[in-house]
């Protein structure tokens, strides 16, 4: 499976689930922007390693909203403690998808430790994540996208030929927060 195909599957699932989608810096965000731009997408432009943490904070802040995070193997290796924090908090509305292409794809495809045998599913399980599994193909990933916890999606190295994101940080944040918070006010209106 190509990474952009995995991203397209996740984007479709997120739309179907009305989920908020946090996406890692670099080509993954560009690929997501190209395949399915939604206000519910947050495109990271910096702070490599923190997609899973941003998504966790959001999921805990808004337990009524489903949150999906698209992260990378290199980025997760940079912030491995996040797996322990996710295990400790274990929000039911949170799914971390680690797109594992065994390399730093946005900087010239230098190998990561997953290329050398580091198994992020075992790392996640060792950190205490109750639901951690590996998706080897599109069918596995489709099923995993219905669940929570952590899924490692094995994808091929390589980036799609997609343009840079034409939104400013302010535009990304304004659109995203409009989407993230509007449902909250709609829900409270329904309750009132």
């Amino acid at each position, binding site marked *: 499976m190509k990474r952009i195909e995995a991203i397209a599957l996740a984007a479709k699932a997120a739309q179907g689930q009305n989920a908020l989608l*946090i996406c890692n810096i670099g080509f993954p965000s560009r690929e997501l922007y190209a395949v399915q731009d939604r206000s519910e997408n*947050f495109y*990271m*432009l*910096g*702070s490599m*390693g*923190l*997609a*899973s*943490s*941003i*998504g*966790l*904070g*959001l*999921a*805990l*802040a*808004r337990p009524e*909203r489903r949150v999906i995070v698209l992260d990378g193997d290199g980025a997760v290796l940079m*912030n491995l*403690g*996040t797996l*322990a*924090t996710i295990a*400790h*908090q274990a929000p039911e509305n949170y799914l971390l998808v680690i797109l594992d292409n065994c390399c730093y794809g946005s900087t010239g495809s230098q190998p990561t430790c997953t290329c050398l045998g580091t198994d992020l599913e075992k790392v996640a399980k060792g950190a205490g994540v109750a639901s951690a599994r590996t998706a080897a193909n599109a069918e596995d990933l489709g099923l995993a996208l219905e669940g929570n916890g952590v899924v490692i999606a094995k994808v091929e190295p390589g980036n799609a030929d997609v343009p840079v994101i034409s939104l400013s*940080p*302010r535009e*990304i*944040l304004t659109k*995203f*927060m409009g989407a*993230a*918070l509007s449902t*909250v006010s709609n829900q409270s209106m329904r309750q009132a």
Partner: protein
Amino acid sequence: MDPTLAVFRGLKRAGIDFAASVPCVNLQQLLTMVSDDSGIIHVPVTREEEGVGVCAGAWMGGRRPVLLMQNSGLGNSINALASLDFLYKIPLLMIISHRGCEGEPIVGQVPMGRLTPGLLEAMQISHFSPAPVQAEETVAWAWSLAAAERKPVAVLLDLQFWRGR
């Protein structure tokens, strides 16, 4: 005024309802109070940079976040403060136990302790060091500044503060 209670009251006055934390011995009572408060979601994190990310997500979800930390963790947070909080204009209140100052018993705390105010200034992060009697007001005001200007703001609390001076 008990210094811990003054900080806690400041957090409550600011409407802080979300906290990420990495411990310091001087924060231990505050961490217990935050954990015990049903109006605050408390997320212990493994390092401070992770806390910057968790707090940013919480703010995007409508919460008022605080990061409780020791100044030794400032170094690992700098990129996140710059390329997440500054870049997107995300507010954050940082309550920082400032080690390595006058009276510090652990020599390893001294270098980072001396560098901390200069690092914050280089990053153009406003920082305040109130006495316990002013701490409630300063903490509440620091959040107001962070929220109004959409940026991180730090309250630096040194050993003298925790001794009630």
